[in-house]
């Protein structure tokens, strides 16, 4: 919106027009914007498994800070990640991951952009307890059986990964395009499956302490059980899987809209 209005005013004299167009371009760059996606439910909706104070801080402070810092880094031009082309958040994550060796500002961009993505994905991986969806009735449910033998075997694997991530990290269910199979993986810090070729994220659990400390203190295992047994949004996991096997790369992939550039 910004840019169309500015262009309208740029019509008349040559030098000011050139200056104006440069201004438009700079404004466009400054408008790169990763959105702070709203929580898909009320902050009280996941009680008693994850309570309002947790979601309020987790979504409103932690996630928001990652988004704000990402936008700030993208806007200040310190990292030359092709701002002229329309980049999705996933592209930004992959490029900054690759560039991490070369500059510390790429590391900062990666850490924040990946955490922004991870949190948006995580909140969508949950839905209020008692919502009716059954993993068994889904195609991803069938794929789980194919890859793990039984749902219980997948559950054990996922729970173990979540409980054994030392320190801050994430556990994932991913689709591996190379083997056409599902895998449980775990990552440290901000890292996520997007940086592993062929891995498409289907489901995640945040096991940074801030995700569970107010509700469970040090009892991560209790939080993990509650998440797995009461909160997983299997509809979302199913969508991600269907998109993944369809070849689109799933997981809420979202190109930044024209207006946002």
């Amino acid at each position, binding site marked *: 919106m910004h840019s169309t209005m500015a262009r309208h005013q740029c019509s008349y004299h040559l030098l000011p027009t050139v200056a104006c167009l440069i201004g438009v371009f700079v404004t466009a760059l400054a408008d790169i914007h990763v959105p702070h996606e709203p929580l898909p439910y009320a902050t009280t909706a996941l009680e008693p498994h994850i309570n309002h104070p947790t979601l309020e801080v987790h979504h409103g402070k932690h996630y928001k800070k990652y988004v704000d810092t990402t936008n700030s880094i993208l806007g200040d031009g310190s990292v030359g990640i092709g701002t002229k082309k329309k980049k999705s958040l996933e592209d930004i994550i992959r490029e900054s991951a690759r560039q991490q060796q070369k500059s510390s500002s790429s590391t900062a961009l990666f*850490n924040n952009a990946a955490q922004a993505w991870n949190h948006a994905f995580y909140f969508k991986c949950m839905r209020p307890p008692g919502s009716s969806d059954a993993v068994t009735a889904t195609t991803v449910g069938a794929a789980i059986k194919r890859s793990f033998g039984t749902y219980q075997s997948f559950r054990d694997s996922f729970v173990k990964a979540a409980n054994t991530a030392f*320190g801050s990290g994430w556990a994932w269910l991913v689709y591996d395009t190379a083997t056409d199979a599902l895998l449980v993986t775990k990552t*440290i*810090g901000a890292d996520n499956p997007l940086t592993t070729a062929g891995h498409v994220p289907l489901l995640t659990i945040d096991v940074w302490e801030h995700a569970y400390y107010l509700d469970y203190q040090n009892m991560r295992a209790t939080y993990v059980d509650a998440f797995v047994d009461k909160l997983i949004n299997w509809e979302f996991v199913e969508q991600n899987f269907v998109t993944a096997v369809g070849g689109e790369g799933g997981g809420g992939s979202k190109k930044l809209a024209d207006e946002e550039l």
Partner: protein
Amino acid sequence: MSATTKLLNPALRAAANLRSSALPKDVSKTAAAYLSAAPSGGAHTLPDLPYDYNALEPVISAETMTLHHTKHHNTYVTNLNVALEKLDAAVSAGDVSGIIGLEGALKFNGGGHLNHSLFWENLASKGSSEIKDGALKAAITESFGGFEDMKKEMSATTIAVQGSGWGWLGYNPKTGRLEIATRANQDPLQATTGLVPLLGIDVWEHAYYVDYRNVRPDYVNAVWDVVNWDVVEQRLAAAK
């Protein structure tokens, strides 16, 4: 080490490493426990805090101190003991792969126990400790330009730790200078860098979440008010 021990240990070690049924299982286990470096028959214990749980208020609440000490640190101690028992078994069975497989658990839980033990000691109630003119202050000035410069740098570096970890002021025995370092997770400073730990600040979220939520900078800036400078000074003297 007594002469008896000097003779006995290698013999026991050799005996314990025999995989064959030449050594009865219970004797093998006793030998392994005897050889284990852990005190009190092989078990580490949770050290008491040098002060009450509310002693560090308002910087760190009693609630945090109770959780941090009785739950988090205690779990590291428990799991360290479990890992050491497994290590004893692997060593006495000559299971090299098993020994190496315990690396992660030992580093994590052993590091957790070491780090937290150091941490409790380098804290003291607000107003009870001040840095004095002496070897520590001189070393800080030499290495950082000034006391406030050191605090500023250590705060920034510690706040910037990604995820879980620790900020440390350490003594470099090779250069004789002080350095600021950070470690991820529970990686212990001395074992992984050679620096002797003088002052540690825990920035795992559990260290500050109850009191400061996500605002780690507020916690780190406030923690300077509860540092036990006498202990830091003593550690430097011992390190030299």
